[in-house]
């Protein structure tokens, strides 16, 4: 299959190993991977902040960049949700509506793509360690991705996966919310870090680097040793 990658801006700049991991995994599975270099951002920061005109301008660029793709895969629940769920809303009653819906319909978050489209749950990966999983809210509630990353992680040799209690709670990142309402964002982050600590896991895995940016930021400030890892880093570890 010809797979077109959408690598979110923060992964491009802060966590390139996640993008590299995606490429390695998909190529190992025998697929042709494309990366249109004109891509930049899905536009979500402007969208969430209420600046829909600016968001639409950025999104229009993305729609154009990805218009020829057969299928678009992104290692991000929040960016995947932006494109698949919110692009149709954003472009409603505009001339690019059809094009935007077409792009939306062929966009997938990475783990749901592997499990639901490629029907792959075992990559022959290994990663020794005890880890817990953080569900990013957009991937979880907008895209409905919950079982897929767990199905993949269950087949990683040496990995002990423990669930957090409470599960499903927002980490507090929320994009610009993190800096507009930092006291609330941090309080929520504290709650998430406490839940992670209780699992006594060495790693917290997520399919959203944006959440991990916030969680790791708090863990580091607290001097905790727990390391945040993107799902892809775990799966590509032994490749």
């Amino acid at each position, binding site marked *: 299959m010809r797979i077109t990658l959408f*690598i979110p*801006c*923060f*992964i*491009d*700049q*802060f*966590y*390139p*190993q*996640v*993008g590299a991991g995606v490429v390695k995994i998909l190529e190992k599975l025998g697929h042709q991977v494309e*990366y249109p*270099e*004109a*891509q*930049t*951002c899905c*536009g979500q920061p*402007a969208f*969430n*902040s*209420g*600046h*829909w005109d*600016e968001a639409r*301008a*950025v999104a229009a*660029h993305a729609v154009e960049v990805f218009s020829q793709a057969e299928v678009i895969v992104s290692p991000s629940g929040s960016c995947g949700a932006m494109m698949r769920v919110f692009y149709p*809303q954003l472009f409603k009653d505009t001339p690019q509506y059809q094009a935007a819906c077409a792009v939306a319909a062929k966009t997938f978050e990475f783990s749901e793509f592997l499990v639901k489209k490629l029907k792959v749950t075992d990559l022959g990966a290994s990663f020794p360690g005890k880890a817990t999983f953080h569900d990013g*809210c*957009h991937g*979880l*509630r907008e895209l409905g991705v919950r079982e897929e990353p767990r199905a993949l992680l269950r087949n990683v040799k040496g990995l002990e996966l423990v669930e957090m209690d*409470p599960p*499903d*709670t*927002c980490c*507090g990142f*929320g*994009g610009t*919310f*993190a*800096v*507009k*309402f*930092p*006291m*609330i964002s*941090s*309080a*929520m982050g504290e*709650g998430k870090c406490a839940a992670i600590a209780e699992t006594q896991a060495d790693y917290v895995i997520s399919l959203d680097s944006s959440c991990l*940016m*916030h969680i*790791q*930021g*708090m863990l*580091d*400030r607290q001097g905790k040793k727990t390391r945040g890892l993107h799902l892809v880093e775990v799966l590509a570890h032994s490749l």
Partner: protein
Amino acid sequence: MSEYSQQFKASATRLTADLDHRQWISKALRGYETKRDEFKGRFQSWEEARQAAAAVKYEVINHLDRYLAEFVAKLEARGAVVHWASDAREAREHILRIARENQARFIIKSKSMTSEEIHLNDALQKAGFEVFESDLGEYIVQLRDEPPYHIVFPAMHLKRGEISQVFQQKLGAEPVTDPEALTMIARRIMRQKFCQADMGISGVNFGVAETGMISITENEGNARLTTSLPRIHVALMGIEKLVRSMDDLALFLPMLATAGAGQNLTGYNTLYGGPRLKGESDGPTQFHLVLLDNGRTRILADAEQRDLLHCIRCGACLNVCPIFRNIGGHSYGTTYQGPIGSVITPHLRGLQDWKHLSFSSSLCGACSQACPVRIDLAHHLLHNRRNAIREKPPALEKLAFRFFSLMMRHPGLYRFGMFMGKLLQPLHPIVKGSALDPAKAWTKTRETPKFAQTSFRDWWKNRPQNRPT
């Protein structure tokens, strides 16, 4: 920033720093979650039930004029007097007039968030009437002179010691702290009030169009007493509270109980069709229903957000909201807290003054998932944000996002911007944490991520497979 926004930020800052408070509220909500899941699990399909409830509300709200007319006609035929109030002031005036015309002195109330919305108690007291809240939680916060903390659990923030203290102060009660003993103190006092009151004021959970009845849900029995013993019953109802028929209640009453309070069914669910009828031995001789608009028709006119009127005020969204449990109910500074409050308050009280409630959310979507009538609250938060910015864009922020848009539409500019960021990041520690730190809001509590040596796109470009031959 409006004064409400400033108050909100100040309160949120204070409450998020109060670890004791956060833990207390979280503990209370964990208890609710366990019970809720138990009773949700009894449903053969909670998700289908939600869809059905959403569809019923959609039908009623989108034919509201018809259903309201039917409802009012049936009620009036049974001797009820119906008053229409375009706004809070009119509603208060109706109720004051009813109280005066009937020489009521002593008024007892059962729980009504709508009465909070119109600031009824204050108006009644200023006019010389004695008003008592009979619901235990409402009574406690009334004594403490503070607003309800949560639309369903008004006193959930209080510990028994605090309740005991206000009982001692205001009622001269014994210094007991046992919850049962405290409840019995309130019961003894309220019992007298029920028997002495001239007028009982209640809210309405559902109006039943087909039979012209109001339905009131409660656990304590105080609403039943409020509406049985005094000679006048006044009910206050938002115009959106209708369902089609009694049969709809067979769906809504269990869902309200489960989602709202983690119960199989609430203690008393009572339909009232009017005053005492011929042949009945007791009950009020007058029944007045005050129908309240107060901004609801404004929401109705916003077709995109019309389903906000589907809300059955169960409180489920408050219970799952991570914002609510960290900032507390009082931080909202308005009648309706949590996600529903964050979405409707800008509509009811002004977009620019109250938009901060819609912005102060991480958009996690737990509210949309919890809502028994499937209101997509998280998406409506986005709609409010868009509307607020469209109406009055903050200049600096608009400039920033215009620049963001420019940068993201031009890959060359984006690469340059990222290059500059990477270049300047080593200098960040110099200003980190200080007033000059551009990332101050972040760095106060978190470390920052580091720009990678090689970005993904550079890695990709330089792969042997991708290098131009």
